[in-house]
């Protein structure tokens, strides 16, 4: 009997120490998650004391709502465009700041190029609103160079707003990719480049045949992570365009916010949030599988 109690105490000790962590995680993660899923199955939650259980009716409504599909398409465009932008700019700049130049200059450029990462979304959005304003610096430069005659309303024109948003998102998001690729580039053995050089490879051949294959695991992992983050990105979009003009830049995250805190349709908002959760979870599973394979 005594030995059984001692065994239970010994076995239980690790779980006892895990308990605070499990409680905090449960409270901060599981409860809201459960509540959002629950809300999506009721009608008029929060605004009514006794909401009605409607089963999957909210999902049915959502799937027939053209606004949802339009936001979904915008989310897809924004996510794919942003991730591609981050990748191209990130890898290009990583190659530049990895170049064999004076150490001081290299440190200076590396520090400068990481700057967009340290600004908050509010600062970034406000700055770009000013830059892209019809009377802002970008229009002034374009007119001065003779590329446009009339100032363009970059964030107000439905045909330009998504492109402008992609520009802002690329600027804001490339530093993480650049830093990840830079650390990846530094692990590529120098001999591979030297061997390629002796084999007769130029810059692009070395890039295609040495750099890219060596960075492939980093590219895949970082792209998936960026995809997950960008897919549910809210502050930058909301503060830059507010989902507008009209619904031109409305993405699923801004649609959720609008439904909940502008239209007070919390059940519909929860339903959109669950749809975001399902897609994000799929990306996360892909990411985890990739990480497990790397290990």
């Amino acid at each position: 009997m005594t030995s059984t109690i001692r065994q239970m105490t010994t076995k239980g000790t690790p779980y006892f120490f895990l308990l605070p962590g499990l409680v905090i995680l449960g409270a901060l993660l599981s409860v809201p998650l459960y509540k959002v899923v629950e809300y999506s199955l009721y009608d008029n939650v929060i605004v009514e004391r006794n909401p009605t259980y409607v089963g999957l009716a909210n999902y049915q409504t959502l799937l027939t709502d053209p606004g949802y599909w339009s936001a979904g398409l915008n989310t897809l465009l924004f996510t794919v465009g942003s991730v591609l932008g981050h990748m191209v700019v990130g890898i290009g700049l990583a190659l530049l700041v990895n170049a064999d130049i004076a150490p001081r200059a290299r440190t200076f450029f590396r520090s400068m190029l990481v700057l967009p990462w340290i600004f908050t979304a509010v600062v970034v959005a406000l700055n770009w609103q000013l830059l892209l304003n019809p009377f802002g610096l970008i229009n002034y430069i374009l007119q001065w160079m003779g590329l446009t005659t009339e100032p363009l309303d970059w964030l107000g024109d439905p045909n330009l707003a998504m492109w402008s948003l992609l520009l802002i998102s690329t600027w804001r998001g490339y530093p993480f990719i650049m830093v990840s690729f830079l650390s990846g580039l530094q692990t590529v053995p120098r001999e591979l480049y030297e061997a390629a050089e002796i084999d007769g490879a130029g810059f692009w051949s070395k890039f295609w045949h040495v750099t890219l294959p060596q960075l492939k695991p980093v590219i895949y992992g970082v792209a998936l992570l960026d995809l997950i983050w960008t897919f549910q990105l809210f502050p930058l979009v909301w503060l830059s365009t507010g989902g507008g003009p009209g619904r031109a830049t409305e993405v699923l995250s801004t649609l959720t916010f609008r439904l909940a805190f502008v239209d007070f349709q919390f059940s519909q908002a929860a339903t959109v949030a669950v749809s975001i959760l399902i897609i994000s979870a799929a990306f996360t599973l892909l990411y985890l599988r990739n990480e497990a394979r790397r290990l």
Partner: protein
Amino acid sequence: MSRIEIRNLVKMYGAHQALHGIDISIQPGEFCVLVGPSGCGKSTTLRMVAGLETISGGEVSIGDRVVNGLRPKERGIAMVFQNYALYPSKTVYNNMAFSLQLSRMPKPEIERRVREVAEILELTPLLDRKPGALSGGQRQRVAMGRAIVRDPKVFLFDEPLSNLDAKLRGQMRAEIKRLHQRLENTIIYVTHDQVEAMTLADRIVIMRDGRIEQQGTPDEIFHDPDTVFVAGFMGSPPMNLVDCMVTPDGLKLGDSEITCATPNGLRAGERVICGIRPDDIRPASDMTADMTADTAHSAPITVPINLIEQLGTEKLVHFSAGDHEMIGKTGGRVTMAEGAPHPMSFDMKHAYFFDPKSEKRIR
């Protein structure tokens, strides 16, 4: 086959001078081994010939051309790296074919060349594998195949066997030697392993602190060293180098006197460094046919035996002579007791004498 001329080669890293005017002339088809301890500048010299390091001063010519300003691919060289440097994402076939693909050679010709070289190196069954699925020896062969397939004027090898175990290293050494006999290309080979240098080279260049200490054939380097450094560097176990005093009849080594002829010009009372290889010190009872019985060249002295190392076919006999720890040799079947005094014969006709100040040979 191309001649390589290295004239007054200098390498500066900021204020630090790594190479101090290297001069080497390598004949077409010659196998030249650069050997020396770590940091002596052998790899730097090789990389400057390859075009992977800039040349701070001097000139490198391959064939009739000065190649100082040429890029590596324009120099007509192929290089085998210490860590193989195979492209991990490419198959063995594509690793070997890469340089030919870049030069836009027709596919059938690439295929013919790669398969021919793969056949020579017994790589044919491995052509579809990636480097990660190969053993160290196989990777090394692929690295050599990649170099051979280009049919270069000059092969450069940068410590290619240092990552292999002792047995495989021996096999690959023989393979490289056979390849050289077959292809007859000019080769510069860098190693810190003096056995590799001795077995492979037509010419050995011994380097130390960015300077050439001595160059010559393996026989010249081993049997006719110019300096204390060369004498001590080549040979395993190394040559015994002991500080002695010249006497009217020979040398005083600790308390013992060895009767021997000393070079002309040395006077009694002068100090000298005497070098004698372990093969030339044997127990007095174990004289080999190679050693002379002439007492003028073979003076036995009785010394305490400290340690005996059994190597199989022979034994290394560690003993003390004065303050010096020395090594001699005897047959693997000879019985000797550790700790007991034993008469050892020194074959002094194979001894070398060096000036203690300049460390140069006194002939």
